[in-house]
């Protein structure tokens, strides 16, 4: 048997792929086919034991059973069980896993932004600054001269610095 295909056959996990390999190679390659049908005559003997040729007919027993049942051919119940509704377990498991993975990713992506403050920051209110009334300085005079005002506003307090106008700084 071609060694590389033998190794490949052992390594392949799926039956369909194995079957493809059998069809494409093992059944076509003369070397493999020869080994594949190795001593068929011997093997056949294993499957056809001698006692079967001399076995007595089972008809008397079958007949007795048929008479005992008193049934002419009729459908009591199917000889071969009807195909059961098999849930595709693997597909179901894959779908559930995919659902959970997507759900988790979606939760982290779509959750409202804004991280929780920790330590001293956590004591501050998380209320957005826009909600706090803003201080507005229209005009400031310092010693009779126009001055500049600097406002620093936190969510809880407002600080205003006033500086002479020659100083640089932004009026707010």
């Amino acid at each position, binding site marked *: 048997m071609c060694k590389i295909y033998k190794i490949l056959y052992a390594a392949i996990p799926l*039956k*369909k792929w*194995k*079957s*493809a390999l*059998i*069809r494409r190679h*093992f059944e076509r390659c003369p070397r493999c086919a020869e*080994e*594949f*049908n*190795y*001593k*068929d*005559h*011997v*093997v*056949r003997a*294993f*499957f*056809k*034991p*001698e*006692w*079967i*040729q001399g*076995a007595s*007919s*089972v*008809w008397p*027993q*079958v*007949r007795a*059973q*048929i*008479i005992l*049942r008193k*049934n*002419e*051919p*009729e*459908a*009591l119940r*199917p*000889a*071969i*069980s009807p*195909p059961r509704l098999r849930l595709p377990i693997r597909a179901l498991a894959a779908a559930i896993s995919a659902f959970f993975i997507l759900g988790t990713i979606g939760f982290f992506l779509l959750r409202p932004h804004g991280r929780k403050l920790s330590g001293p920051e956590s004591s501050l209110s998380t209320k957005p600054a826009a909600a706090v009334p803003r201080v507005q300085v229209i005009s400031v005079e310092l010693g009779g001269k126009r001055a500049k005002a600097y406002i620093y506003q936190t969510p809880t307090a407002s600080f205003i610095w006033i500086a002479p106008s020659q100083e640089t700084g932004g009026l707010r």
Partner: protein
Amino acid sequence: MGPTDDGQTIARCLAGDREAFEMIVNKYQSGVLTLAWSVLGNRAEAEDAAQEAFIRAYVNLQNFDRAKDFKNWLYAIVHKRCLDRIRKLKTEKKYRSRMAEAAAPVMSGFKTEPGADESAVLSPLLKKLTVKERLAASLSMNEGYTAAEIAGILHCAESTARVHLFNAKRKLRKGLERNPHVQNL
């Protein structure tokens, strides 16, 4: 008796001629027994399974689609019966082992006799094969069935049947190579 003869015999059976079924039993008995024995590996069990299969076939003859091959239909029933018997045997085995454990202190002085018909037991070579592999190999070797026909009996995909058949042959080859008696054949 060909497939058309089968059709005529089946028609007679369905018309109420019970004895016509004997022809079918006699025609297929050898194949059915071989198949059952290949799967079950025991003569007594194989004969029981064959009987059950024939009875089941007779009772359900109305369900048989006459456009299809009767032999394949019958073999599918045999396969099903064999699987049922294997299930039953497993349960019995469990029960027996429990009983044996319970009776061990009492029965310790007795020796059990070996099976009466050892020749009718499956060879160790075939025991290495799975049930489906044995069935596929038996159908292929004895009846010349193709992978597609085997798939029809096993109720599986053709690719699966092909893999069963290939694995069976591979295992048999390995087994034969290790057996010095078979080397010279």
